[in-house]
């Protein structure tokens, strides 16, 4: 049962083969059994079971939707009324959210069960889940390696079958990179597709929530609930939301796949390259054509991102000052001392590093050279994609340059850590939808993800391409040893 997809569980629930209470209880027990993975920050079994009971009542009345009764692990970046919501930080270690994020509200309305709040890099800043105040998360495929980040807890939870589905957020790759490193299907929707209301901001112009699941079909079911315009988020877009399950089985004949030559050059490990090439060959068998494309400004994505994201973050994180909620230092002499100590004690090293980078980039005299220039680069990067999509429908390539690295391997070298997002970051800068799907394994036994990049608001096409691939491959069904 743990290995069942959301789609399968949904059928079982409605056929009353299992109740949501049984399902929720079983997953909670399993979470407890594998708590060494450190995938969750907060569990509230009573709250979860109350939701499960309500879902069962709804199912009994025949009013169930596709997600009614499905336990879903929520990244601890989403505010959920009454739940401790820490964002992986000491500074919010005592913050119980008094309201629901739009995403949480939508899942509640759909009758889903909040199974718990998952571990994450502090304020979503990290690619390994090592910056969390709540400790590192282990990768179920090999507990000596990282699960990726920042949505590392969600990734580990779904990969280890501690939850059938989870939410993640993706600012520079935080859904796709951990999905790739743990053999999951992860989707970062187009910027503006999913409301950011109640999702604690890291970099507002890049952040986007999305599903982390095992199949494209499950991703479609999740996106059906998550997507849509929200009047409380001025950056959400008022575009109609299609039923994403409808187009899953569309024929891929004639699909033009663009392979950016920059994604297959220096820096890509040969093991990963081999897996990706095999996956592309599989797509050809499905009738797709392959065209080589160029994204000439790709190498600028990381420097551009590491100006813009910290700049926004430095401002977004100013509200954590100890005045109204969250952690406040114990002894201080005056207001300035309270601010300094609270933030010095409340934030971890990576968060402080980014606040400092961002503050610097926005300072008088540096603004033009850094922030403004980065904004120009951002437009160039978006323009690269626009031009590329003139000759292809979907862009494919590796999600990450290597498989999961060892815990501690890159934690002292931030630049090496930042480079693990080299293929994902430009998608956020352009605001496009991107996916990572299981594509095979490297000789070390660690999973490799294939990245799919689509055109604005064309998540359907990505899900369709992913689903067809999953009909002819079984990588996504593989389970880490010791969790079966």
């Amino acid at each position, binding site marked *: 049962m743990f290995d069942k997809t959301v789609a399968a569980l949904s059928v079982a629930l409605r056929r009353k083969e299992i109740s949501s209470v049984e399902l929720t209880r079983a997953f909670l027990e399993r979470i407890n059994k594998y708590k060494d993975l450190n995938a969750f920050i907060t569990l509230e079994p009573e709250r979860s079971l109350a939701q499960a009971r309500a879902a069962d009542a709804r199912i009994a009345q025949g009013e169930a939707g596709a997600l009614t009764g499905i336990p879903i692990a929520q990244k601890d970046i989403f505010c959920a009324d009454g739940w401790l919501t820490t964002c992986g930080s000491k500074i919010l270690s005592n913050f119980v959210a008094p309201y629901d994020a739009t995403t949480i509200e939508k899942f509640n309305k759909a009758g889903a069960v909040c199974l718990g709040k998952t571990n994450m890099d502090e304020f979503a800043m990290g690619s390994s889940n090592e910056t969390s105040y709540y400790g590192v998360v282990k990768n179920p495929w090999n507990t000596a390696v990282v699960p990726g980040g920042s949505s590392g807890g969600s990734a580990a939870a779904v990969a280890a079958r501690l939850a059938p589905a989870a939410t993640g957020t993706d600012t520079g790759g935080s859904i796709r990179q951990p999905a790739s490193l743990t053999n999951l299907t992860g989707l970062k929707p187009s910027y503006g597709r999913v409301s950011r209301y*109640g999702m*604690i901001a890291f970099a507002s112009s890049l952040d986007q929530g999305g599903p982390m699941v095992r199949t494209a079909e499950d991703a479609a079911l999740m996106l059906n609930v998550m997507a849509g315009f929200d009047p409380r988020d001025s*950056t959400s877009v008022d575009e109609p939301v299609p039923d994403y399950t409808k187009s899953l089985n569309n024929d891929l004949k004639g699909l033009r796949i663009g392979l950016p030559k920059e994604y297959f050059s220096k820096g890509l490990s040969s093991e990963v390259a081999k897996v990706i090439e095999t996956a592309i060959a599989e797509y050809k068998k499905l009738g797709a054509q392959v065209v080589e494309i160029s994204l000439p400004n790709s190498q600028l994505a990381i420097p551009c991102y590491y100006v813009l994201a910290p700049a926004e973050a*430095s401002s977004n994180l100013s509200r954590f000052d100890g005045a109204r909620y969250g952690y406040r230092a114990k002894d201080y002499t005056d207001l300035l001392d309270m601010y300094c100590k609270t933030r010095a004690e409340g934030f971890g090293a990576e968060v402080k590093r980014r606040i400092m980078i961002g503050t610097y980039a*926005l300072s008088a005299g540096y603004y033009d050279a850094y922030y403004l220039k980065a904004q120009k680069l951002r437009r160039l990067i978006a323009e690269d994609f626009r031009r590329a999509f003139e000759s292809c429908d979907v862009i494919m390539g590796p999600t990450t340059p290597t498989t999961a690295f060892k815990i501690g391997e890159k934690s002292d070298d931030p630049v090496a850590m930042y480079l693990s997002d080299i293929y994902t970051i430009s998608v956020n800068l352009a605001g496009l939808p991107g996916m990572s799907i299981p594509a095979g394994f490297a000789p070390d036994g660690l999973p490799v993800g294939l990245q799919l990049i689509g055109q604005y608001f064309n998540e359907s096409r990505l899900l369709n391409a992913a689903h067809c691939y999953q009909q002819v491959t079984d990588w996504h069904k593989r389970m880490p040893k010791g969790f079966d």
Partner: protein
Amino acid sequence: MEWETVIGLEVHAQLLTKSKAFSGAATKYGAEPNTQACAVDIALPGVLPVFNIEAARMAVKFGLAIGAAINHRSVFARKNYFYPDLPKGYQISQYELPIVAKGQLTIDVDGVEKVIGITRAHLEEDAGKSLHEDFHGMTGIDLNRAGTPLLEIVSEPDMRSSKEAVAYLKKVHELVRYLEICDGNMQEGSFRCDANVSVRPKGEKKFGTRAELKNINSFRFVEKAIEFEVERQIDLIEGGGKVVQETRLYDSDKDVTRSMRSKEEAMDYRYFPDPDLPPLVITEDFIRGVEKTLPELPDAKRARFMKDYGLTAYDAGVLTASRELADYYEQLVRESGSDPKIAANWVTGELAAFLNRDNKDISASPVTVGMITGLLKRLADNTISGKIAKEVFEAMWNGEGDADAVIAKKGLKQITDTGAIEKVIDEIIAKNPKQLEQYRAGKETLFGYFVGQVMKATQGKANPAQVNELLRKKLSA
């Protein structure tokens, strides 16, 4: 050496929207602390701002009234600084692209007109308040005001005296109230002003180093603070010193300005476009829609009052000082059908005096247009004299009813019956044989004495014209 003063003003006008600039919380003044602060206002993790378009409507209204171009695309920016009454750690404002571009206002100082340029007007949100008094050793924070929309109106450094500065400030004050976009209440802080002040030798083209004066929240303080500051700067330079660029706080108790922070300590606000808010797009249709709601503006109204009602510039100025007073006056002219000048005399005379005495706004006047209309009717039909009318007005002000009721109750009806007046005159003449003799001997100044005696005997109710005519006849008979 002769010195010239250079002044530019920054006005913060709280906009009269029902809800806040970026949240749905109410903006009403005076509620219990923190009862009008929602999740967005207290900057909980995860919340986002949504712009209240009503604030843009009001800003556009102002822009049109000062003849400014409206920017079709303006950008919200974050002004970053830490302070407990600023919950997000940044204020949402507009920086490089404000909603209202260059415009102007004409002021009048001692009959001389002068055009003052307005550089820009931009939208921003207000901060909360720190309460230092009520909490021993601690500071309380009230976030009710946090997020209230403000229009910051920045003038050019076009003013050359404190008088001009006050005239400009009054003009802006009058305008925002006319437009009904700000209540103009300076005590409650809904209309605030900072002044940039510098001096330079007369004839010099280059500006001197300026000081920014804060906390000058009354017309009188603006005048006094600028005067103090100008004197301070001149003394400093003449004494061999140099003015430093700094922010100074006006202390109204001691009537001095004090240094708050120097340019070196000036904050770097790290402005950048707010990524939570798309650029504010104002279409031509939107502007035309707002244009239709523009009322007649003060200058136009003044000119019309002088032309249509034959009023002096002074009377027209008093009557158009507020839209409500002007409306009151026009309604009175319309309803009473009386001479506009007589109506003006009553409004600028008795009514203004009583409003002033009791510190009341025209909207709270106990004497309504209908009541003055009734009074003017009784004046016109000779029921009462002008003198009695003032007595009636006071009674109406005190809530004793309308003119007819007061006249009836107090028996103030004018005596116009010739027989009755003659009777009184005869009695007075009979009682004053000595004065009669002197009058007839040529001491004509005694005529006034007789009039006074008759009026006294009739408690002022005898028709003065008739008294004059009859007395003259009888005395010379």
